[in-house]
């Protein structure tokens, strides 16, 4: 092999850089996020009304697609009413529908998003509910 020394040094540096994030975070336990749905607004509701626009499983997996479609529907098609699987109707609005119940953005949105290292730009424009600093 030509330039064996140089190649080996290069490989070692590359290996070091590529695996740096794994070594850097080794042994650090990051708490699993547990989004809370016990806001005062939700607790006020009667037991049988404590339901999101769709099932918990659907929302957990698909809320981003749902929000994207809501956005296009409201802004671009001027259709603002959402009819869910059970036939119940909702005003499609992040600020005025979603966050009215989920008034705990820090616990409900941010914790998971931080854990997954995603930065949705919703809050650059949409106003989050006022929360007490905790």
């Amino acid at each position, binding site marked *: 092999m030509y330039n064996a020394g140089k190649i080996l040094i290069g490989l070692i540096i590359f290996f070091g850089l590529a695996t740096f994030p794994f070594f850097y975070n080794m042994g650090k336990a990051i708490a699993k996020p547990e989004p809370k749905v016990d806001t005062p607004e939700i607790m006020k509701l009667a037991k049988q009304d404590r339901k999101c626009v769709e099932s918990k499983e659907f929302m957990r997996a*698909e809320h981003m*697609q*749902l929000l994207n*479609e809501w*956005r296009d*529907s409201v*802004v*671009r*098609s*001027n*259709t*603002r*009413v*959402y*009819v*869910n699987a059970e036939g119940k*109707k909702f*005003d*499609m609005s992040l*600020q*005025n529908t979603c966050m009215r119940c989920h008034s705990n953005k820090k616990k409900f949105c941010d914790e998971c998003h931080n854990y997954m290292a995603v930065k949705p*730009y919703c809050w*650059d*424009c*949409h*106003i989050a*509910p*006022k929360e007490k600093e905790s």
Partner: protein
Amino acid sequence: MSINRRQFLKIAGISTMLGIGSTAIVSGLRKGDLEASQFEVSPGALTAKRWGFVVDMSKFKSGEDIKRVIDSCHSIHNVPDYGNPKDEIKWIWKDDYEHVFPNQENEYATAELKEKPFMVFCNHCAQPACVRVCPTKATFKRQDGIVMMDMHRCIGCRFCMAACPFGARSFNFRDPRGTDENGRPFIKKENPEFPTRTKGVVEKCTGCYERLAKGLKPACVEASNGGIVFGDLEDPHSEVRKLIAKHYTIRRKPELGTQPSIYYIIGGNENA
């Protein structure tokens, strides 16, 4: 079996392409999770074939009336106030006759007419130049004639601002959520029911689309005591059409063919 480097690269390349292609197809198929039939128009929403405005400045008795109308819009839409004309954002404002209608140049007109204030905001043109030039359809025309902004999609190229012959559009040169040197927020009091904008997008009057959906007329119309009248221009029995029939009205720069939807009553004092 032995392959040379060239063959290996070809196989690697093709399999990568196939991999990317098939994931695109799979994710494309999944798109139909939510069906369009799940979305409905709000009950009680105001509808029209072509929304339009008639502005009658004789109903504005003082500067207070003008300010009230401007505030009614800017406060509910979280329009920031930077305190300088360079970064300025405005959805509705006033200017004088001479500058609102520069093509009506008349050297013997009285100073009173030349300096007479007129309310200006987006004309919601029937043939909008801004919509024609937008490279992402971020600004588009709704079926009811409102020229709408999708702030989620705007890339901030400002082609629409070059195209609009009415100066109706503003650009977020900086973050509207920020504060000035003294820590005073640019948006004095946020309306929690409406979003702000983010830096780098274009904004303008959206015809209060969020109020129309609730069956309410635009905020400026409500605050103007009849100075700004709102209605369907395509409906011959609408209030706007009756006013246009009764009074002499002009529009801003009609010669450019954009078909503005704001009609101004001139000399409203005498005719009203």
